[in-house]
């Protein structure tokens, strides 16, 4: 019971800490950044193998001084609506704290005015889905203040597919079969051995 009390207390405290992050709404962000990806229509990229080339930076046509508060840039891989369907754990919420659209961080770098390019090898824990890329600009308190994305506002253009790794390995398959065979053989071996012993022992 004491252990439970301690668990409750520590969770409550960590929750309080979490709450201090502030409430940033996606709808309050300015779309001042531009992001482009070099993917062809219908191209399927393989996780763990293929590269994604991303170019991002401030929209050069905007007035100077728009980016005065930007300190850090964060690039994220985001789910397209088709991959969010029937999957409530990827839901889009206006509250950035609760938003699950962009679950994978590609890179985080100090802010640079000029256009940047990155060749990103897609990591092996990325699931099979349709994606786009979004960039967030963070201020000194690490709150999002601006964004840009590689697709339009309805998230319908310029989407790309990623194929996940299976996670299976031949060695695992073989080990699994060996253990299974052992289990079955041990069981029947024991069974027939005991049956034979009973038959051979003197009948009462």
């Amino acid at each position, binding site marked *: 019971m004491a252990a439970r009390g301690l668990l*409750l207390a520590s969770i409550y405290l960590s929750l309080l800490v979490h709450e201090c992050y502030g409430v940033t709404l996606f709808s309050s962000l300015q779309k001042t950044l531009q992001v482009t990806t070099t993917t062809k229509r219908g191209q399927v990229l393989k996780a763990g193998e293929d590269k994604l080339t991303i170019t991002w930076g401030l929209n050069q046509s905007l007035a100077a001084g728009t980016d005065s508060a930007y300190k850090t840039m964060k690039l994220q891989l985001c789910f397209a609506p088709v991959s969010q369907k029937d999957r*409530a*754990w990827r839901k889009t919420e206006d509250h950035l704290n609760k938003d699950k659209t962009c679950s994978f961080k590609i890179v985080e770098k100090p802010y640079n005015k000029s256009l940047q390019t990155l060749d990103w090898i897609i990591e092996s824990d990325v699931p099979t889905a349709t994606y786009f890329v979004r960039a967030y600009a963070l201020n000194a308190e690490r709150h999002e203040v601006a964004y840009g994305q590689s697709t339009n506002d309805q998230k319908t253009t310029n989407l790309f597919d990623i194929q996940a*790794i*299976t996670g*299976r390995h031949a060695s695992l398959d073989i080990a699994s079969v060996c253990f299974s065979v052992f289990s079955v053989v*041990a069981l029947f071996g024991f*069974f027939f051995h005991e049956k034979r012993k009973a038959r051979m022992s003197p009948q009462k």
Partner: protein
Amino acid sequence: MADTENTPGNSMHGVSAKEKAFAFSVASPIMPTDPIAKFKLPVDSEHKAKVFKIFSLASPHMTTFHLSWLSFFTCFVSTFAAAPLVPIIRDNLNLIKTDIGNAGIASVSGSIFSRLVMGAVCDLLGPRYGCAFLIMLSAPTVFSMVFVSSARGYIAARFMIGFSLATFVSCQYWMSTMFNGKIIGLVNGTAAGWGNMGGGITQLLMPFIYELIRRAGATPFTAWRIAFFAPGCLHVIMGILVLTLGQDLPDGNLNTLQKKGDVPKDKFPKVLWYAITNYRTWIFVLLYGMSLGIELTIDNVIAEYFFDRFNLKLHTAGVIAATFGMANIFARPLGGLMSDMAARPFGMRGRLWNLYIVQTLGGIFCICLGRASTLPLSILSMILFSITTQAACGATFGIIPFISRRSLGVISGLTGAGGNFGSGLTQLLFFTSSRHSTATGISLMGIMIVCCTFPVALVHFPQWGSMFLPATKDSEKSKEEYYYGAEWNEEEKQRGLHHGSLKFAENSRSERGKRVGSDPTPISATPAPV
């Protein structure tokens, strides 16, 4: 005349009204101890232990107890092993909510059938082989998770692993061959509760193993597959232990002992008939679906719920989810204890009210859990929910031995299957479609629990009454002997087959509550031959 008491096939048989549900060492004083038998524990004339020493490993009785509950525990661990890892698995296999829901339903559906078959298997091969066969033949199904690469494969694997939950039957059956009828209630309740705990431990164990494997360098989509080797190996180890250390009966194994001659085994069609024509059986099938069924459903959804709703790390969600299942270590026996305590002043009516109150409270806390939007409140609701629901499971089996004496085994099996069915049904209704969130699903499930617990009020025993009605005033029908004797026809009564029932009826008089002392001994009862 042959006495059918305590023969294999009658699990939980002969449970008297007087057993305590929660004591560490319980002795049965009325049964004479066999002075010649050389066992570490005092035994009765059939060499069944009269004392339950929880922390002993005395062979064969306590060894059997520990082998038995550990096997059942292992199967619970493997059946629910996927649940805390779903956040990883759903990304690897590209699952949608319906797939996850269907897999959960599949995991509890297989054992509806296998639990019914296991009774026959225990009769034919003995509980030792019944248990070992099931646990070792289901090990390959656990290892098969390594091959799964689609939603269909995942659902199929979880379905097959779920068959192993029939070890509940072999566990209870085995206990009834080793322990005297007067303490069998406590023994079976403890074994069942500790076995069910596996559903909680797995929520801690699997994320922990997964985390270790990931730190060792594996990618997430491979690490979860490797993690399944742990429950798989447990299956094999437990199977081997059961085969080498276990024995069917106190005196040896089934096939090396001569079977006792002309003990008339009861006819299965008759036993089945009296079980299914008793309306109380079906009410309890529904009720157990709303207590154990809910427990199994929560085992499947709670880790994912905490992970998603409160953005917790996988193993944090696992820790919280584990506290739900682990409450079984004391909550289920507590339910039985409260049932016994309520029976002392109020008899069966007290037991029924206890069950109604505890299960309804479970439903209310379930609603609270669904509606709680902060983590501390959510955890508190979940803890209260777990204690009350599991106590309801214990309270249910405080009443079931009294529904029928002849068909106790079948009724217990049907009730157990009803639990699994309730789990499948609630997962289908509330956690498979995308129409509402998991939180809403939990609240709706709570409302269903509250509504479906009302039928307890319909359970009426003519000799003891029900929640709202007292015992009947009719002089013949108000006798326990009439109720239990009604399960035998005249021809069977002529052959004296019903004597066990009469003995039981006499012992069950304490279910009248405080009225026991004032009733005269009925003259019509035939003295039972010893």
